[in-house]
Each structure stands twice: as structure tokens, then as C-alpha cells.
């Protein structure tokens, strides 16, 4: 599992991609919904089998 940070806008949030060869594991935590390494715990759109767009709006 790899997190790629492409945009870091500080308090406006951080954005990027997550590569995951398995299914992402949901944590049940609304603030960190997925067990993802790095700073982008919220997965948004699944682009293909392995890639997700991800963001962190908590900064």
C-alpha cells in the first residue's frame, strides 16, 4: 500500500492517491475512515482496481 501526496494546502486539506493491492480496511472512525499509511486516510473515488483518490481534510 502506497500513499502519494500531490497537493498539500495546509488547513485547506491534503490530496493525493493511494495504491492498494488488497481491499482497503475500514476503521469505523469517521475521522480516519481507512487504515492507510501516510496522511490521506479518507478514500474518495476508486479509479481502477488498485488506485484511489484520497484526501485529508483534518489539517
Amino acid at each position, binding site marked *: 500500500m502506497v500513499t502519494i501526496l*500531490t497537493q498539500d494546502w495546509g488547513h485547506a486539506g491534503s490530496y493525493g492517491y493511494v495504491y492498494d493491492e488488497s481491499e482497503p480496511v475500514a476503521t469505523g472512525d469517521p475521522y480516519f475512515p481507512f487504515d492507510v499509511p501516510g496522511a490521506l486516510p479518507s478514500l*474518495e473515488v*476508486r479509479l481502477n482496481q488498485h*488506485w484511489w483518490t484520497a*484526501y485529508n*481534510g483534518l489539517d
Partner: protein
Amino acid sequence: MPNPWRADTLGQLGEREKGCPLAGTALVAVGYQFLKTESLFLSPWPDAAMDIGGTLLPLGVASGVGGFLGLLLTPLATGVRRFLKPRVGPPSRPPTAAGRIASLRLAWLGVRILLVGAGTWFAWTAFWQLYVGFPGSLNFYVHHARFEEIVAQAKTMPLDPGSGKN
């Protein structure tokens, strides 16, 4: 002032007035995307989707199409009324050539509204993803090779003991 949505007045409008519905459609599309982008915590991307019972509903596409259908509702209602009137109401005059031309103009206006909406939608998405750099399908397609290279490099790094993560 003539109502631009009435088919029988379209022929009386100048080019400037005919452009008003198109400009309004573009304004609605841009305004919606601006408001949605402002709510960064909810769905910052033009192709954001909402998980409804396991089904991903593309919010942008759904709301955009909904908005355009809403703009088309008035002439559609007029069309339905004109369709039903000769069938359920008293006999009326036969359609005239001018009426047919007005109907064609109305249909063409609807097509142009949809085209302008789709173009605005694509331009807005391209702006955010290709110029600003937000993640999304277009941005991912452009930088795909670079991202795959990063993943390949990450796979060569040693794993944290017991975590299974690089």
C-alpha cells in the same frame, strides 16, 4: 418582455436573448462546482461520488444532469401540454409551419443547453485536475506512468517489521 422559454416567442428573440438560457446553464454548472469545491471536507473533486448502499453515485454528473433537466422542465411541460391538448381537450387548429419551426428551435435550444453544460463540466474538471492539480481521473491518466514508477520504487524498500507496510 417575451418569455424565452415559450416556443412561439423564440422566433421573435434576437441572438442576444437566445444566448441567455445558455449562459444561465453555464453559470449554474460553474456555480454548483464552485460551491461544491468550497466545501472541501465534503467532496472537493469534480468527479466525487457518494456511497449510497454500496452504489457509487457520481454527485457531479447526477446534479449537473438534474440541473439541466430542471432548466428544460418548462419547455418540456409546454411540450407535454401541447401533446395532450389535442387528445384530451377540445379540437384545436392544425399545426402551422411556423409552429413546427418554433418547436424545432426549442429542441435545438435544448440540445445547445446540454452541449454547453457538458462543455462547461469538462472544462471545469480539466481546470481543477490538470491546472490546479487535484486528484481525479484526468489527473491520474496524465501522471499515471510517474505514479506507477513511485509504486515500483516503494516496493523495493524494506517493510516495517510486522506491519506489512513500507
